[in-house]
């Protein structure tokens, strides 16, 4: 714990809450994420994990509380502005640009870096073209990292579920984020594929990117997390390092189940 405290905080979630027609989907949740750290959010289905992500990334307007990124209050900020401040994410329900090629999907992640004025783009000025090429090269390299380079020219909508999950990760990485939110990146992947994603995440974190992870694959979570936050019914019920959390009786009862505790 002391190791965590010593560093400066990148993302600080303070008392975040939201209700849907009377249901407190997330209620007064607080935690912090530091650069290079992998923080996992776990909890039963419907605990509010995705909703929490949606509030942090500006897709839902938080009902209460604050989100502080790099010392700046970014609560309720539009997602594209958050992207500019270094936040990037993937989705539990895939959000793919279906009719674009796999490569173009990834290139889109470079939007902020390649973006110029629309006039320059209309006139096809050299600067605009140069930036577009740079983005293309970077995207190609990223596709290689997630093992999709051979599918680069295929229409994204035609990929299988697992491949799309990885495409989303590539696109999110293209933003060169300071903090990356991953919502169930390993869903639909088998154990071996999960391990690959595992490595990728660890690698990214090692380069100093903070990672906020939602995942139901406990083996993965326990293996790579520095810190775990447990939600149940929208409330934070536990928090700590993997070892502590996995022994927490409340967590076992609500989430892991007795079977898991045995193992």
């Amino acid at each position: 714990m002391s190791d965590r405290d010593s560093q400066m905080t990148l993302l600080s979630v303070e008392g975040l809450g939201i209700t849907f027609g009377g249901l407190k989907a997330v209620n007064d949740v607080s935690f912090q994420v530091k650069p290079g750290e992998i923080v996992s959010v776990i909890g039963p289905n419907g605990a509010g994990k995705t909703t929490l992500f949606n509030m942090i990334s500006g897709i839902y307007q938080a009902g209460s509380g604050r989100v502080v990124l790099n010392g700046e209050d970014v609560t309720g900020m539009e997602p594209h502005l958050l992207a500019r401040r270094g936040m990037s994410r993937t989705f539990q329900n895939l959000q793919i640009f279906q009719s674009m090629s796999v490569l173009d999907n990834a290139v889109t992640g470079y939007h902020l870096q390649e973006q110029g004025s629309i006039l320059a783009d209309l006139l096809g000025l050299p600067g605009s073209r140069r930036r577009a090429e740079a983005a293309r090269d970077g995207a190609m390299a990223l596709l290689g990292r997630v093992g999709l380079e051979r599918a680069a020219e295929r229409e994204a909508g035609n990929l299988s579920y697992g491949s799309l999950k990885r495409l989303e990760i590539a696109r999110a990485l293209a933003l060169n984020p300071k903090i990356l939110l991953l919502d169930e990146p390993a869903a639909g992947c088998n154990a071996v594929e999960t391990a690959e994603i595992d490595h990728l995440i660890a690698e990214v974190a090692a380069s100093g990117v903070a990672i906020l992870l939602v995942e139901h694959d406990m083996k993965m979570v326990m293996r790579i997390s520095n810190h775990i936050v447990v939600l149940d019914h929208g409330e934070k019920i536990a928090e700590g390092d993997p070892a502590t959390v996995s022994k927490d009786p409340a967590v076992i009862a609500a989430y892991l189940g007795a079977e898991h505790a045995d193992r």
Partner: protein
Amino acid sequence: MKLTPKQATLLTLVVLIALTPFFFPSGYYYRVGALIFVNGLAVTGIVILTGYAGQISLGHAGFAGIGAYACALAPVHLGIHPAFAVVLGALISAVLAWLVGRPILRLKGYYLAVASLGFGILVSMVLNNERELTGGPDGIDVADLGLRGLLKDFGMDLTNGEFWYFFSGLCLLLGAWLALNLYNSPTGRALRALHGSEIAARTVGVDVARMKLNAFVVSAVYASVSGSLLALQNKFITPDVAGFMHSIEMVTMAVLGGVGSVLGAIFGAGILTLLPQVLTVFAEYEQLVLGLVMMLVMIFLREGLLPSILRKLRGTGE
């Protein structure tokens, strides 16, 4: 040497515009050609709005109306040269598109369709009703562009039809070139991205509202210039240019030809401009045929005529 799609498109257009006149049996064909180019220009704007960004407008004729009436009114009331009136019309259209686009582009699908429809109807209503200014439904005269006379002084004596054929052709080339530049540019990609998933586009940093507005404004300018060219060419204009049917016509041309590609959409403009000319022999069946063509193309050649044809050609080549 392998051409990029952009080069291929531009080359095709240049060749078509430059060479077809050699086969024209009479001056009338220049007129039809010029109309195709004018429509092609408007339709290129629709490609940017609908093909790239996936936004629907059933009111773009409103902008064509503004462009057209700018050419009719500005020279008379403001005393400016018709050429500047084109620019003025484009400016007004851009500003209006910006103002109208901000609220309505938040809407999606059919809701956007009805809102844009409303805008188009408002414009055509003003043109119809403000008779003192616009001449009402009977229309109004438009000043001569004067460029033809200028060319004459330089020793290029073109007939009216020839002049407008080449002049509109040139404008179309310029418009197509701009739109093609856009396609693979950062902005173009952002537009196509928000077409696919707005949420994902936002999280990768695309300012969706601004991007949509960009596309709307640019396409409005295309429509406006197209309207101006039509007015200047015809030297007379009626509010029909801003009417609902003209809006539909623009969208139909684009979608029929292939709204995803500039060349496709221009092809669509060509087909639909030619169709009534070809069908004059069976004028009674014109509507039947037109309706049938619209349905059949959309059902069997979903991406539009040109892309589907090209795909078929390539398919057999493999």
